[in-house]
């Protein structure tokens, strides 16, 4: 114990540790307990609730632009009531449409599925599952949330600008995003976007530093690296990806800010806008794409890995079986982490990329199928002949596996540079990444929320609403995104405002209407989940046992409502790996239990 505790005496937490041993909790003002809190659990909840608010905003945006896609040009007078000149006469104006699409992507990718997902669960689970009182630097951790909050405020503010928020697509490709003359969204909105994202990156870097050094330095006695739950491994690789790739986006954003405001030509060359010849020369728009996608592709795994980790954990717990192939799971996470940095140019196959170079990226891209397939195989074999308990978390975890398979398969299509000539920028791409990255990670997040809600708030979510939420969301997700594959294969482009004059796509008119209607329904059900979430925080069924799911990991050895410092006495010592389920005739053996004399090996 001495070594692990010794470290804590240097950090800010030690103060709390002494107190919690003496008399339960000590006095904190409302501000230091709930607002500028340094407790990792409170910061996790801050990330989660901010993420939920962002998800409602981002989801609402998708409903709005789906209205335009399903019913092009039709008037919905209520829209004018709310959005004024953005929806003149009740129809969604082109600038509004592009702003909606852009902000939907930005909000969901960065603010919900990066900050809301890994921000919540890294903060919550890392100290609890490795056996630490708090993060390596609780202060840095607090700063990371407040930088995220500031980034959120700026992003929200950009939506209330006269000229609207950024609207050149979530990737912000120059020259469109660099020239205010080009469209309204590239005026002040793009600057807000870039500054907001710069702050967001700073927040993610501070968070990532903390996650990595906590996992590597603050584990309790006996918690060797190979005794860590897979959630922690996944969150570790997520943090590594973020720390190494976000700075590159920052450099791209800085250069773009200079191009926009100071007149440099990093990304701009030989441009005529509305008859005006611009002086910029020698810039390369492709350079931006390289800088962007060097982050952009790892970003996909920053989103996906936390979901994978949580799903592994939840599948094992609710199958009452050890995870199949722990080391293979670990190795495949590592392989994905390495390959994530080597495939970015597959987003740029049709930018005039050298075909030979393209074929290298095809090979590396298709290689990702190997670790992905290993993971899928291991999830399915974990389920195989398990004593499955269909808790809401388990359903969402299984749903994740389903979505990951069906979305992953289309990735093999898109990873081919030749097939990509036909499929790029079509609805096929939209369908692919929404299923495999967007909805799948959302499912991972829901699984995590349903599973760890009792630990977070000491209460359960309502099960009936949860089952309803799951089935409508799963069926809805497939109804929304599956048909988009057909549209994309037929060549229907993404991002277009109105395709109705395109005679060959008229056959998809009613299909698009169906997608839009399902989107509205699914969105409404998500609001029901939000209601369940907030209602249950205050009125949910109370947790009465410390370990409601019968799990082996350390977070369930804490009190039902742990204080700052997590454990009242000493931090427990770990004696075994976290997946001893159904062993030697016992349902589960906690990690804290010493290895017995006659115990079989796993």
């Amino acid at each position, binding site marked *: 114990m001495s*070594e692990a505790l010794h*470290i804590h005496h*240097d*950090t800010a937490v030690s103060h709390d540790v002494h107190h919690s041993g003496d008399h339960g909790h000590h006095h904190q003002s409302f501000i230091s307990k709930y607002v500028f809190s340094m407790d990792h659990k409170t910061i996790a909840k801050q990330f989660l609730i901010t993420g939920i608010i962002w998800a409602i905003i981002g989801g609402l945006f998708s409903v709005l632009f789906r209205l335009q896609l399903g019913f092009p040009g039709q008037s919905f007078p209520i829209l004018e009531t709310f959005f004024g000149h953005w929806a003149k006469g009740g129809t969604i104006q082109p600038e509004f449409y592009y702003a909606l699409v852009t902000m939907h992507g930005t909000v969901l990718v960065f603010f919900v599925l990066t900050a809301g997902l890994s921000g919540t669960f890294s903060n919550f689970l890392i100290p609890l599952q490795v056996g630490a009182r708090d993060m*390596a*630097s609780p202060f*840095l951790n607090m700063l990371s949330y407040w930088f995220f909050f500031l980034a959120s405020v700026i992003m929200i503010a950009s939506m209330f600008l006269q000229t609207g928020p950024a609207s050149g697509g979530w990737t912000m490709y120059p020259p469109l995003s660099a020239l205010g003359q080009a469209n309204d969204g590239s005026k002040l909105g793009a600057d807000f976007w870039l500054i907001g994202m710069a702050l967001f990156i700073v927040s993610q*870097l501070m968070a*990532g*530093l*903390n996650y*990595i*050094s*906590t996992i*590597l*330095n*603050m*584990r309790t*006695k*006996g*918690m*060797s690296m*190979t*005794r860590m739950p897979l959630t922690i491994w996944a969150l570790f690789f997520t943090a590594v990806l973020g*720390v*190494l*790739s*976000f*700075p*590159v986006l*920052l*450099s*791209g954003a*800085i*250069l773009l800010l*200079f191009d926009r405001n*100071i*007149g*440099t*030509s*990093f990304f701009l*060359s030989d441009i005529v806008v509305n008859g005006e010849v611009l*002086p*910029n*020369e*020698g*810039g*390369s728009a492709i*350079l931006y794409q*390289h*800088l962007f996608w*060097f982050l952009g592709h790892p970003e996909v795994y920053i989103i996906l890995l936390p979901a994978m980790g949580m799903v592994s954990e939840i599948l094992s717990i609710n199958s009452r079986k050890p995870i199949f192939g722990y080391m293979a799971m670990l190795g495949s996470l590592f392989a994905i982490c390495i390959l994530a940095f080597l495939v970015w140019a597959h987003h740029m196959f049709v930018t005039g990329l050298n075909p030979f170079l393209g074929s290298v990226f095809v090979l590396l891209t298709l290689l990702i199928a190997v670790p992905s397939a290993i993971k899928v195989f291991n999830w399915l074999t974990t389920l195989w002949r398990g004593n499955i308990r269909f808790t809401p978390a388990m359903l969402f975890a299984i749903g994740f596996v389903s979505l990951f398979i069906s979305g992953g398969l289309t990735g093999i299509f898109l990873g081919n540079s030749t097939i990509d000539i036909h499929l790029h920028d079509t609805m096929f791409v939209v369908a692919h990444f929404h299923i495999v990255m967007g909805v799948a990670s959302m499912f991972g997040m829901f699984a995590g929320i349903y599973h760890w809600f009792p630990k977070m708030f000491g209460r359960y979510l309502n099960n009936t609403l949860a089952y309803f939420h799951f089935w409508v969301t799963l069926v809805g997700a497939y109804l929304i995104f599956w048909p988009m594959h057909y549209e994309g294969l037929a060549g229907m482009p993404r991002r277009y405002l109105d395709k109705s004059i395109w005679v060959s796509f008229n056959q998809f008119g009613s299909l698009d209407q169906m997608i839009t209607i399902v989107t509205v329904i699914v969105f409404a059900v998500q609001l029901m989940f939000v209601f369940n979430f907030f209602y249950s925080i205050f009125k949910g069924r109370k947790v009465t046992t410390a370990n409601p799911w019968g799990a082996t990991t350390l977070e369930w050895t804490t009190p039902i409502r742990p204080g700052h410092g997590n454990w009242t006495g000493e931090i427990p010592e770990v004696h*075994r*790996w976290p997946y001893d389920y159904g062993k030697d005739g016992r349902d589960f053996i906690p990690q804290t239990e010493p*290895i017995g004399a006659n115990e079989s090996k*796993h």
Partner: protein
Amino acid sequence: METVMNQPKKKLHPHKFTLWVAIASILMMFAGLTSAFIVKSNLVGWSNIAIPKIFWVSTAVILVSSLTLQMALRAFRQREMNQYRMLMGLTFVLGCVFVVLQWIGFKGLWNQGVHFTGAAGAGQFLYIIFGLHALHVLGGIIALLVMFIKAFFGKVKLYSAVPVEVVATYWHFVDILWIYLLVFFLIIG
């Protein structure tokens, strides 16, 4: 999985470890910028620049400041607090001199007609890359200032060398980063 983790005697302090990860992260940003430089230098309209001589002076200054900070760290470990305060103060001053020299270098370059507008060239990258480096030095200066003030007014006597070591490591890092950037501009710029 039977092996119990052996607690090594000298384990890296979490704050130091965090710093090393942060250094990796900062390096990635500069790697992004310098690789953008290489890509851009092969495109039309590129113009090279002569590195102003004053950057050699600033190189000498930051190298000396690394030395003084290292001596300060040694003085701290030997509990020679007066010497420690003096050396910390000296490092702080040298750090400020470095930033001022960089600023003078930028002004000299600007007066030679290297501006932001118009065709792209090494000069624009130089402003941004050296400017971002100077920002990182400024961060170090603020940390030095905090340490310096603590050395005089700190109510609690601190015997742990960790904060000083963290600052020293960071300072050596921005020093080495500067050498890398200068050599980069000399060879490729």
